[in-house]
């Protein structure tokens, strides 16, 4: 990222002059207002609103109004976008974001390239959060017993009840998700301090509590360490989906990517082995992936530990000694993994996602043996992203069972939905206060609902990693009468302060001294400007590894059984379900299954064959008196003894999707028979003193004979064509190309013919005088995380079409990620291929358009002119990549509030016309015009399409192919570069870099030995 752009991002920010608070918050309750405008007026005034009103009568044209501000705010310039650095609040990872503000409203979230954790990426969930800001489902006022009231009334009533508690000494419990902001901690401490018996309980719906519990035992500190994947040369992961959903996937993706340097002079690609029961995003990128049942994974971890101990000559208790790999795990080359881990010790890393303290203890031991502490694992400045304490949660539940809780305040979590609790437990609490911004399962039970702000309209602070703090700043005035949790709690503690004041005060007192800055103002302004700050915090003081902790590990022999296990897992888009009401995320195809709008039972092909079920048929999962009917999704690579089901579905907030999508004669609703999207599986979670458990043994499964069609964007999943239809030699299509690290190192690339020049039939009439835009996508780096898909949706106003339309293969995403399986023996390889308009030089779509609605630009772009399109669909038929999207219906834009998230730089397409990826031509135009205005040259990397901007793995590079010095030109020259369907001579402008697998022959030899 060049410094010039850096300057541009923030140049209009007035916070550097200290003027922001007033300007950004002109309607702060304490402020004297210049012009009192109501909320509606604000919306009306927001920017250069051009409202079209059709006047009755004989006017020539529909009369359009242009309504200027009465008083021009300094920071709003109609038609120009400004970026504010802030922090994402969509999950507890707290990535750095830039809020793109246009005409006074946020329209897009982008990654902050300078943020030390997220490195410029922003995941799908984070990107989609902007839509939730304009969610009409958000509570517009606080509620008492379900009725809308004012804040004054709520405050009075709650204060009365709290005072009572203070007097009686009743038990007050504050139940929250991870709140890593130091200010929140201070406020909560202060608030709870006013009660004689109060406690703050934290849990994470996607818990990592076992990790912190294990570290408490092995290193004397309850913490989740910070993993440095960028320092690892060998990674073994035991069911940790670190590229998908585990702890801080965006950060991990960034650092995982940073370690991969296949194009360097000395190519370097870390070796990664994954032991997992289902197919996860992380597993799909592994060099060796070993499917195993949950119990087997634990067993393998123990075996690996003892192998490593033997190599390190560290004595271990006899019961932890190797027991040998049983036949059911003969495909697992554990020796190879151990060898490679040992070879690179000091740069090796073992991660375990198992919610099982014993396994985590072993994992810590193995890392200790490998010398990972201090290199790939940082205990001094650990992660603060998962602070849940499941033991405390279990304690609260037993308190609730006893009826011992007098007041329960719930913020940031939805226990009634996501925990295996009986609803009576919460209903029985005499005072239940929810801070949920939605009318969800928990707030329905609550006596008081005090809706919190959306993070884009709220001040806040975070500290995702010990020593790295960041600020959340409001990008617009709150749309509704909501209030920050900090404000509510301090109000009830007797201090009526704004969140801004609270945070600034705390920072002045507690953080500024650690910053090394001269003045607090400069520290504050710099942090606001950068979005984050690094503090010189002392280490948390973890001790050295205590071998004694291993005493707690029991040794269980592996029982080879045929029992089925149920594994509950989070999906990349829906995760724990807190954003399940977001239509973008529901319609985002799961990176692995490519299914939208549902959860389903993933079965291995073998199990599906045994059960005689096919995709779309339902199965009944039973254990005891619990049963669950789910449609089947057949998942290659899944362990045959495992049924996996996604969490986060079936929430009441998904009832809103009953009416999404076009309405017509044969339209089917997006919801299931239960009126919701998918099934809630939270009652299948285990909650014991050990923590939340996502696995369940010995379940029964049976075919029901009923059907529940699932909406998948892909119907054929393999790179090979069906066997009975395959022409000889054409079984596998050369769409995805792969190479190995060994081949790269030796310089002998498998691909030699791909730079061959095609003979030219036509005269070269078309030169590109100035630029020739192109894109290169590194398939090796792409993890399929789909952040780019949502980035594209947000940038380009792509409509949501609903389940039925997706089922009919009419999703509208301009950018899709093709996922292919390729089976080699028992191994299932996965490849992701982001596929968008290839902007072909000899575009087949252009030739066939009768009305010149799609033609080529002088910069090599394949232009689609919406207003000229008559909708013959010939172009889409003739597109070999099938990347064109047709507006089958008029997609809904009636939600005026939601329309505020539309990008004004991109036309909203009407019914009957074709659309497709434009390489974000609006950004190209903006950059060209702005550079010309400022009389400066267009720099390489200055233009980033939305997909590239959001990609946490930096797999996408956009640039000018005419400029020999540009990054894209360099990448095109690499050996890994190829173009898809190059043989058709359509001359795509998008190139791909082949996947690199680290499966060196040397190691295959050792694998052979281990088999022998």
């Amino acid at each position, binding site marked *: 990222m060049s410094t010039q752009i850096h300057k541009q991002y923030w140049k209009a920010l007035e916070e550097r002059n200290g003027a922001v608070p007033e300007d950004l918050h002109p309607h702060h309750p304490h402020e004297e207002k210049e012009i009192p405008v109501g909320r509606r007026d604000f919306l009306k005034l927001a920017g250069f609103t051009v409202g079209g009103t059709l006047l009755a009568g004989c006017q020539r044209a529909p009369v359009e109004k242009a309504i200027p501000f009465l008083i021009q705010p300094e920071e709003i310039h109609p038609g120009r976008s400004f970026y504010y650095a802030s922090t994402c609040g969509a999950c507890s990872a707290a990535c750095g974001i830039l809020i793109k503000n246009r005409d006074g409203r946020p329209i897009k979230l982008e990654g902050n390239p300078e943020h030390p954790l997220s490195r410029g990426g922003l995941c799908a969930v984070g990107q989609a959060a902007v839509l939730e800001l304009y969610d009409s489902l958000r509570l517009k006022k606080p509620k008492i017993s379900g009725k809308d009231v004012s804040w004054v009334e709520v405050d009075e009533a709650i204060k009365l009840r709290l005072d009572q508690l203070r007097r009686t000494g009743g038990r007050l419990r504050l139940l929250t998700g991870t709140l890593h902001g130091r200010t929140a901690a201070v406020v909560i401490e202060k608030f709870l301090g006013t009660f004689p018996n109060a406690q703050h309980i934290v849990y994470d719906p996607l818990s990592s509590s076992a990790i912190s519990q294990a570290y408490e035992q092995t290193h004397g500190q309850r913490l989740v360490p910070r993993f440095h994947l960028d320092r690892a040369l060998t990674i073994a992961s035991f069911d940790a989906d670190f590229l998908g959903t585990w702890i801080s996937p965006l950060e991990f993706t960034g650092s995982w990517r940073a370690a991969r340097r296949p194009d360097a002079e000395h190519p370097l690609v870390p070796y990664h082995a994954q032991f997992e029961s289902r197919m996860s995003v992380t597993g799909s990128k592994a060099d060796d992936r070993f499917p195993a049942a949950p119990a087997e994974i634990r067993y393998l971890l123990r075996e690996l530990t003892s192998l490593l101990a033997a190599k390190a000559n560290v004595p271990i208790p006899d019961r932890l000694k190797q027991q040998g790999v049983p036949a059911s795990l003969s495909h697992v080359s554990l020796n190879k993994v151990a060898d490679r881990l040992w070879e690179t010790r000091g740069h090796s890393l073992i991660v375990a996602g198992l919610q099982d303290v014993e396994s985590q203890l072993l994992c810590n031991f193995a890392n200790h043996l490998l010398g990972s502490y201090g290199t790939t694992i940082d205990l001094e400045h650990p992660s603060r992203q998962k602070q849940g304490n499941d033991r405390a949660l279990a304690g609260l539940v037993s308190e609730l069972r006893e009826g011992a809780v007098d007041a329960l305040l719930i913020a940031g979590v939805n226990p009634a939905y996501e925990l295996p609790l009986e609803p009576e437990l919460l209903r029985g609490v005499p005072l239940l206060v929810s801070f949920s911004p939605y009318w969800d399962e928990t707030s329905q039970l609550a006596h008081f609902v005090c809706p919190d702000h959306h993070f884009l309209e709220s001040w806040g602070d975070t500290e995702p990693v010990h020593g790295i703090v960041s600020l959340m700043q409001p990008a617009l005035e709150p749309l509704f009468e909501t209030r920050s949790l900090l404000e509510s709690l301090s109000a009830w503690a007797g201090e009526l302060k704004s969140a801004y004041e609270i945070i600034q005060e705390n920072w002045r007192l507690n953080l500024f001294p650690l910053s090394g800055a001269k003045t607090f103002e400069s520290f504050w302004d710099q942090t606001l400007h950068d979005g984050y700050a690094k503090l010189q915090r002392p280490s948390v003081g973890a001790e050295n590894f205590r071998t004694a902790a291993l005493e707690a590990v029991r040794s269980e022999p592996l029982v080879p059984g045929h029992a089925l296990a149920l594994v509950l897992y989070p999906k990349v888009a829906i995760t724990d379900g807190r954003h399940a009401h977001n239509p973008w995320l529901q319609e985002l195809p799961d990176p692995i299954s490519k299914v939208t709008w549902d959860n389903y039972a993933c079965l291995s092909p073998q199990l599906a064959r045994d059960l005689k079920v096919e995709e779309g048929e339902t199965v009944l999962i039973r254990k005891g008196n619990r049963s669950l009917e789910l449609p089947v999704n057949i998942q290659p690579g899944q362990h045959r003894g495992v049924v996996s089901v996604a969490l986060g579905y079936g929430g009441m907030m998904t009832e809103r999707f009953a009416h999404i999508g076009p309405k017509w004669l044969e339209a089917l609703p997006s919801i299931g028979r239960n009126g919701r999207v998918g099934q809630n599986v939270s009652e299948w979670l285990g909650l014991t003193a050990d923590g939340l458990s996502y696995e369940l043994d010995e379940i029964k499964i049976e075919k029901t004979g009923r059907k529940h069609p699932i909406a998948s964007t892909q119907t054929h999943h393999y790179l090979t064509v069906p066997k009975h239809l395959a022409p000889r030699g054409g079984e596998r299509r050369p769409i995805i190309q792969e190479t190995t690290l060994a081949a790269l190192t030796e310089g002998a690339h498998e691909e030699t013919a791909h730079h061959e020049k095609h003979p030219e039939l036509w005269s070269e009439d078309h030169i590109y005088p100035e630029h020739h835009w192109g894109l290169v996508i590194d398939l090796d780096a792409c993890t399929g995380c789909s952040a780019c898909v949502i980035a594209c949706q947000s940038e380009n106003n792509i409509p949501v079409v609903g389940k039925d339309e997706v089922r009919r293969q009419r999703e509208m995403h301009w950018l899709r990620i093709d996922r292919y399986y390729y089976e080699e023996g028992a191994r299932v390889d996965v490849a992701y291929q982001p596929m968008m308009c290839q902007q072909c030089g000899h575009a087949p779509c252009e030739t066939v358009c009768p*009305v010149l609605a799609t033609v080529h630009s002088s910069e090599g772009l394949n232009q689609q002119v919406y207003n000229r399109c008559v909708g013959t669909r010939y172009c889409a038929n003739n597109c070999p990549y099938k990347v064109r999207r047709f507006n089958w219906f008029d997609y809904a834009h009636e939600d005026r509030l939601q329309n505020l998230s539309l990008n004004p730089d991109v036309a909203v397409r009407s019914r009957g016309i074709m659309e497709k990826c434009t390489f974000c031509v609006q950004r190209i135009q903006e950059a060209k015009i702005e550079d010309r205005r400022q009389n400066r040259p267009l720099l390489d990397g200055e233009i980033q399409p939305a997909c590239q901007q959001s990609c946490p793995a930096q797999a996408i590079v956009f640039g000018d192919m005419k400029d020999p010095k540009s990054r894209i030109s360099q990448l095109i020259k690499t050996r890994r570069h190829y173009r898809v*369907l190059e043989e058709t001579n359509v001359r795509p402008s998008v190139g791909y870099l082949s996947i690199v697998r680290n499966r060196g022959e040397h190691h295959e030899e050792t694998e052979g030995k281990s088999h022998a």
Partner: protein
Amino acid sequence: MLEAREISVPLIGGHKSLAQVTSDVCSAMDRRPTLWWWLAFSIALLALGVGIAATSYQVATGIGTWGLNRTVGWAFDITNFVFWIGIGHAGTLISAILFLLRQRWRTSVNRSAEAMTIFAVICAGIFPLIHMGRPWLAFWMFPYPNYRGPLWVNFRSPLVWDFFAISTYFTISLVFWYIGLIPDCATIRDRSRGWRRKVFGILSLGWDGSYRTWLRYETVYLLLAGLATPLVISVHTIVSWDFATSIIPGWHATIFPPYFVAGAIFSGMAMVLTLMILVRKTMNLQDYITHRHVDVMCKMVLFTSGIVSLSYFTEFFTALYSNNPYEQFTFINRAFGPLGWSYWIMTSCNVLVPQFLWFKAVRRNLVVVFLISILVNVGMWFERFVIIVTSLHRDFLPSSWSTYSPTTIEIATLVGSFGLFFTLFLLFCRILPVIAIGEVKGVLEE
């Protein structure tokens, strides 16, 4: 009725006099419509109503009411279009090509075959219009001066070629048909009174039977026939280029023009047979449309079936021989993939069924011929379906493979097109002479 007659019998049976010919042909128009006619007409009208309702709904709601998707962008719409255009071609063939080849047997069937052409082209023309996402902007296909720069049309696009081909074909067919009708209109004018005399008086443009006019008339007719012959070949060639100029495996084939033209004649002949067998029965025209006509047309069907079968084989062979895995896959998938059933319907109806026509007994059995003609039409509809849908649904990238199934709206639209065709044809049978009186008189004495 079905007694055997030798093929060497005269073209027109029953030793008709000139006046008899006039009265035989015109009597159908003089009589009140039969119950059968009313029944057929009401069914056709009902089907038309269904089609109008479905089309209005589709135009008002969106193309999404069809079963298309991001991969299969055309299905029923263009299948129907090509099917109807193909049907139309037989009419032109009979009236123009057989005229040039001096096949005198054409006189009995050319009028209704030409009518069939026009109605089929109308049915065909509707589909490209309604298949557009924004049919109200269809006029953008025409290169007219405009305020946009001016922005013209893309003359490189086969759809523009199609637009010109179809509109020219319709215009020329209509003119040809009308020119042929002028003397007959005069005949009707001169034997009627009242409003019909007035109407046909206008239609006949003051035709007086003068031989000087006849002479020029014959020249015009010959010229039009000469123009229509390459035209009809060009039209279906251009229709085939809609596919052949693309890069989709299964479409991108140089064999398409002759293959399509032969297929068009094949399906058109079958449709003519279907209609003629119905017309001769219902309109009492057994003496004009004789077994000899049926026999000749059966042979045409058999011959074109041979060409079509050869095309199927060649196409498959070329693909397998090509060493192009995409092309090979498309054809294997066509026959054995998920939509393989449509391929087998196509081959059995178009290759196997017509083989029965080798037998004279079959050719003489009108019921069997009628059934065969209908099966051929079904087969030819499926041929277009196979070409369009099975090529599209699985092409280069397996990730985008898809399938297709029609919605009720699409089926209703297809039904509606048949409704429109038969409504127009039945009206034609009632209000215009179904047999070219003047031309039949010319061959009476043979």
